[in-house]
């Protein structure tokens, strides 16, 4: 069973996390931009419209890539960074699926892919951080949204292991989580 036959939404709707990432990205994005897990393409569209930059939006979900394309974003169906060339982007943005999920409770549809970060909440953040340095051009920047639900300190450790320094661009607290957008740059 997929999300399609339940009549439920197939594509993640922009929420507080999207707003925060858009705010950070409009402020700091430069050059050629990739948004990984673009969902509806709303953040990518903000960057393209407000900064006049070329933005490519990728998502594992073909419904999401199609919706991003309708917003005028160049949509690609992809698993994280797999089909992107080395050194191709100056800015890479990612609002990852980050909710820690009990494996027995995974519900296996497009919304689950959009929300669940596996048992740790970090199952997509970890491989993203390992590979993102490859696709960055010299002087490139990564904007990563982190929720306190995902384990802020644990994500910082993954960032350091991947050879990046970090600084906080924006942060906002909500009743159940604190959301932070980090700007990552290669160390050294």
């Amino acid at each position: 069973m997929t999300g399609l036959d339940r009549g439920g939404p197939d594509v993640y709707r922009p929420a507080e996390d999207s707003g925060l990432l858009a705010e950070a990205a409009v402020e700091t994005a430069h050059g050629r931009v990739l948004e990984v897990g673009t969902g509806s393409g709303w953040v990518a569209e903000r960057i393209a419209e407000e900064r006049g930059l070329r933005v490519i939006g990728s998502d594992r979900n073909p419904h999401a890539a199609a919706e991003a394309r309708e917003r005028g974003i160049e949509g690609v169906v992809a698993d994280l960074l797999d089909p992107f060339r080395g050194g191709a982007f100056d800015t890479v943005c990612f609002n990852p699926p980050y909710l820690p999920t009990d494996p027995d409770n995974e519900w296996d549809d497009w919304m689950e892919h959009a929300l669940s970060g596996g048992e740790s909440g970090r199952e997509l953040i970890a491989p993203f951080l390992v590979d993102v340095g490859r696709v960055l051009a010299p002087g490139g920047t990564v904007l990563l949204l982190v929720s306190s639900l995902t384990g802020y300190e644990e994500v910082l450790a993954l960032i350091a292991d991947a050879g990046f320094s970090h600084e906080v661009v924006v942060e906002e607290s909500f009743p159940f989580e604190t959301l932070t957008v980090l700007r990552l740059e290669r160390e050294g």
Partner: protein
Amino acid sequence: MKESLMDVICCPLDKGDLELDVDERDGEEILEGTLTCTECGETYPIEDGIPNLLPPDMREEEENGEAAA
């Protein structure tokens, strides 16, 4: 997709260059076509203007999932 997207995409399996075959075009936009890896020969479809660059096993999984629904 625009032809200039070729500058940033590669084969997800071996990062080889892709070759573009266009079946249908609308001005700058390539609507239907095929991308073929020049290293491993794997092919990736362009449908409704969007290249599907999932590795073949993942793509099939999703196609089967939808077909079974």
